[in-house]
């Protein structure tokens, strides 16, 4: 059991009549950065609050370092939560905020001083120790909240959308820093987020959650490269999809036909495990993997399908196109803004969408 830090067994929690957490089982390993990724309302925060002890499960069990938390109140659990709103004590200085947990556990005065100072050093806030939280910037408050949890050396640090309130640039800086701090202290982190990029950057493993259930658990690469369900695929950015059946089989590839776009003929895709002729498949493609052009590049791409530009959105660093492949198939394409005029397309123009077999993810039913 030494390898497992937190184990959730068949955990269920109702909020009124809705099942917020639906018989969820998970194992989080010691010392890993584990993220729970999902849209809002997926039950991520409820799961976190169950682990922290603020809510009681209606069913199932939580074990932390092998010990059941069934009758353990939050103040006796070896976990500390970094709140989404930080929840710093506004009437105490930064130092007193950080030292609060140690004080409550009656750590000796000299120990308390050195540990709280060390924690403030780690988050680079030693010079702000006598300030009050409201005098700090959002990013600084976030660091205080982190130091206040880390200083106690808990078995697990729980983070509820830790970077949600920060602006884009600070967010990216903190993603890297948070990960570095976690590696340095070696404490298990369980982080809840709806931001897929954040989860992929920071985590050792990611659990994708929706409607109270875990849909897939794996390394960021596994989740990103080989999603196992349509929801996960869409949530991590595979927004273009096409349904069809397998036509012919090769060694590592196969072809599929899609009744929704008959003009395309057969499309070359990766051969999914267990594929047979006429197996129903779904092709999923990221918008940034699509190549848009006026004419064919022979031999460069496996697939080429013609489409009409429906909508163009200029975002500065890229151009986003909504392209129609047929009456029922509408895809997105994203091109970096190269500045070259041959890479610009207008609404109503007919273009060619090209991609390779490896660009797509195939789900079988």
């Amino acid at each position, binding site marked *: 059991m030494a390898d497992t830090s937190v184990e959730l067994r068949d955990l269920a929690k109702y909020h009124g009549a809705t099942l917020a957490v639906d018989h969820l089982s998970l194992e989080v390993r010691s010392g890993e950065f584990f993220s729970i990724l999902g849209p809002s309302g997926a039950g991520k925060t409820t799961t976190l609050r169950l682990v922290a002890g603020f809510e009681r499960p209606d069913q199932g069990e939580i074990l932390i370092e092998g010990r059941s938390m069934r009758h353990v109140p939050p*103040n006796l659990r070896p976990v500390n939560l970094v709140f989404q709103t930080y*929840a*710093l004590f506004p009437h105490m200085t930064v130092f007193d905020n950080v030292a609060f947990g140690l004080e409550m556990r009656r750590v000796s005065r000299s120990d308390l001083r050195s540990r709280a100072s060390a924690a403030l050093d780690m988050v680079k806030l030693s010079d702000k120790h006598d300030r009050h939280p409201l005098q700090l910037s959002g990013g600084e408050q976030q660091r205080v909240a982190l130091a206040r949890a880390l200083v106690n050396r808990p078995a697990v640090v729980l983070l509820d959308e830790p970077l949600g309130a920060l602006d884009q640039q600070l967010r990216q800086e903190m993603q890297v820093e948070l990960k570095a701090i976690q590696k340095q202290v070696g404490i298990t982190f369980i982080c809840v987020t709806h931001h897929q990029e954040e989860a992929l950057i920071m985590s050792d493993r990611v659990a994708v959650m929706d409607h109270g259930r875990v849909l897939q658990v794996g390394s960021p690469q596994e989740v990103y490269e080989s999603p196992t369900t349509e929801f996960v695929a869409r949530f991590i950015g595979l927004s273009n999809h096409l349904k069809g059946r397998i036509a012919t089989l090769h060694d590592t590839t196969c072809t599929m036909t899609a009744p929704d776009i008959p003009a395309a003929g057969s499309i070359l895709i990766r051969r999914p495990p267990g594929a047979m002729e006429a197996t129903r498949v779904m092709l999923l493609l990221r918008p940034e993997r699509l190549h848009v052009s006026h004419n064919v590049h022979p031999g460069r791409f496996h697939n080429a399908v013609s489409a009409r530009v429906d909508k163009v959105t200029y975002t500065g660093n890229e151009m986003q196109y909504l392209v129609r492949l047929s009456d029922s198939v509408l895809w997105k394409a994203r091109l970096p803004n190269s500045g070259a005029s041959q890479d610009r397309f207008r609404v109503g123009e007919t273009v060619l969408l090209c991609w390779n077999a490896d660009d797509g993810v195939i789900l079988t039913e």
Partner: protein
Amino acid sequence: MLLWMGIFFILPLLVMLAVSFAGRGTYGGVEWTFSLTNYAQLFDPLYLRIYGRSLALALATTTLCLLLGYPLAYSIARAPVRWRGVWLLLVMIPFWTNFLVRTYAWMFILRTEGLMNQLLINLGVMSQPIELLYSDWAILIGLVYGYVPFMVLPLYAAMERLDSSVVEAAWDLYATSWSVFWRVLLPLTKPGVVAGCILVFIPSLGAFITPDLLGGAKSMMVGNLIQHEYLVVRDWPLGSAISFSLMALVLLGVLAYFKTDGRLDRFEGGG
């Protein structure tokens, strides 16, 4: 604004201040001679005893209101949003009835053949009715009943603003319920506590209806004394002097509080 304050607030005060230094006419009028005798009279042991009792009763009322009001305000502030309005309405409903009428109602409840005695006898707590009415206890009950809403409302305002995750954070950081209260909840709701205590203490110190009706003839509080001097004895100068010294005392107390502990902005609810 200034004119309004001048006419209805400052001017009457100045008149009272002037009267407090004047002499009393033989038949109750005011004689415009300057003397400090009225203020000297305040130190009569008889009066000092009345101040002492009033102070003790006002302090007891404030303490009881705080002890009752704090958990009440907390549970209202933590109730689901749609219930909060209902609870607050219930707290305020008594104000729709005249205070005098409500005090009479307490007389019916507390008198020897009243509801309270009947209830206690029926419950078997005692066999003989006891005299509840016309005692300091009756005054205390009446005052606490009357002023609890003044405590609950500012407390509720302070607690409603409080981010409940701060309380959870303390709990998460190994604090016991007791520590959560002392170290986080109480300090953060202190502006409400101070406002509530001032709102209860000041009117209960000067209360005269409640002690008059529930305390009977034996007990007199400063409020009754002032009323007595003005309306019965018709010694306006002495009444004014008592009023002024009472006001000055309260003002000094409040100022002393802000001087030692606090900043006015906290009281005004800057948060």
